[in-house]
C-alpha cells in the first residue's frame, strides 16, 4: 500500500496567518499582547483600568474574544479604546483567522499597543499563535493557588504573569509565594506583576512597564 510523507505542522495554516498578522502590525509599529486567563480573573477590568490610566499617553486597541455577547467590548469602548468584538459561538479559543478578520474592522491608525483578549480558558488558547509579540497569563487570588502547576502549558508559553485581586489576600486562603514559585519553576524568565484592579495597587508599575514595552522593538 502506498505511503506518503506529509511532514506538516498540524497548525501550519494558523501559523501562516499569525505570521501575516505579526508582519502587518510590525509594519504599522503596533506592539501586540495576547491576554489569557480562566473566566472571571479580571482581564477586561485590567484593560479598562489600564486604558483609563494611559489615556493621552498610549493609544491602545483591543480585540475582545468571547464565546457570546458584546458586553466586554462595550466596557472597553466606554473606557476609551478602539475595540472590536469576536464571538466564537461556542469555540473555546481564538484562532489567527478570527484575529485577521477582526483587524479589518478596527481602526489601526495611530494605535501603538494592541491587546488580544482571548476566551477565558487556561488550556486551549496555548496552542494557537495569533500574531502576538508576547503572551500574558493572568490569575487571581479568588481561584485556587495551584493554577501554574495544574495548567503548566499556559505558563510555559507566556512571558508575563499578572496576579489580580491582591487586595483580597487577607480574606482568602491563597498562597501567593507558592504561586510565584510554581510559575517560576515552569518558566524561570516569567515577569510577574501583582495588582488589584479594584484598589489600583500595583497598576502604576504595570503601566510603566507597558509604556516601556510599547516603545521597545523586541521583548
Amino acid at each position: 500500500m502506498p505511503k506518503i510523507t506529509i511532514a506538516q505542522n498540524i497548525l501550519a495554516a494558523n501559523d501562516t496567518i499569525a505570521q501575516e498578522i505579526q508582519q502587518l502590525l510590525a509594519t504599522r509599529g503596533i506592539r501586540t499582547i495576547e491576554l489569557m486567563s480562566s473566566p472571571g480573573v479580571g482581564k477586561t477590568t485590567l484593560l479598562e483600568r489600564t486604558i483609563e490610566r494611559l489615556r493621552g499617553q498610549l493609544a491602545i486597541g483591543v480585540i475582545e474574544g468571547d464565546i457570546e455577547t458584546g458586553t466586554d467590548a462595550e466596557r472597553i469602548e466606554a473606557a476609551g479604546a478602539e475595540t472590536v468584538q469576536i464571538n466564537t459561538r461556542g469555540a473555546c479559543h481564538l484562532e489567527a483567522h478570527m484575529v485577521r478578520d477582526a483587524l479589518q474592522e478596527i481602526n489601526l491608525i495611530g494605535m501603538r499597543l494592541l491587546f488580544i483578549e482571548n476566551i477565558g480558558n487556561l488550556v486551549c488558547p496555548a496552542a494557537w499563535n495569533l500574531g502576538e509579540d508576547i503572551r500574558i497569563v493572568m490569575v487571581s487570588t479568588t481561584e485556587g493557588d495551584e493554577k501554574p502547576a495544574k495548567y503548566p502549558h499556559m505558563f510555559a508559553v507566556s512571558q508575563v504573569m499578572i496576579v489580580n485581586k491582591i487586595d483580597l489576600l487577607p480574606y482568602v486562603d491563597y498562597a501567593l509565594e507558592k504561586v510565584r514559585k510554581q510559575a517560576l519553576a515552569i518558566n524561570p524568565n516569567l515577569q510577574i506583576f501583582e495588582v488589584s484592579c479594584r484598589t489600583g495597587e500595583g497598576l502604576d508599575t504595570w503601566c510603566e512597564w507597558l509604556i516601556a514595552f510599547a516603545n521597545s522593538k523586541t521583548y
Partner: protein
Amino acid sequence: MSLIHACNAAARYLRSGGVKGVKLVMHELAIAQSVVVAVEAKAAECNAARVKGVRLKIGEASSVVTDSLTFCFEMLASLDPTLAGAQLFIDIVPHRAHCRHCASEFSVKNFVAQCPTCKEWSNEIVSGTELQVLEMEFET
C-alpha cells in the same frame, strides 16, 4: 469542512451518547480538524481512493489528550468517504531540555524546567512541543 460543521457533528455525536468521558473535545476537535484538512489535501494530490492510516507526532508538552484527538479524528474522518475508517497512529515525543549551564540533556517532568544534574534553571527545550502530521497510507 468548517469548524461550525465539525462542532455540530461533534455535538450530534455526543448527544447521541456516542462517547463517555471525553473531555476537552473542543481543543482536540480543532486540532483533529486541521489534521483532516491536511490529509484531505494530500489525498486529493495523490488521487487516493481511500486513506487507510495517518501518523502524527505529538509532543508530550503540547497539552493534547490523545484519546480525545483520536475520537475527534475518527468522527470527522467518517464524514468524508475517502477518509472514513482511516486509522490514526500517534507517536508521542517526550518533553526534553538541554541545560545551558552543564550541557546535560534531561527529561522535563510536569513542565518543571530545573536541571536534575546541576539544579540550574536555564535551558532550551529540545523536544516535546511537536504537533505534526507525519505521513499517510492510502489505496489508489
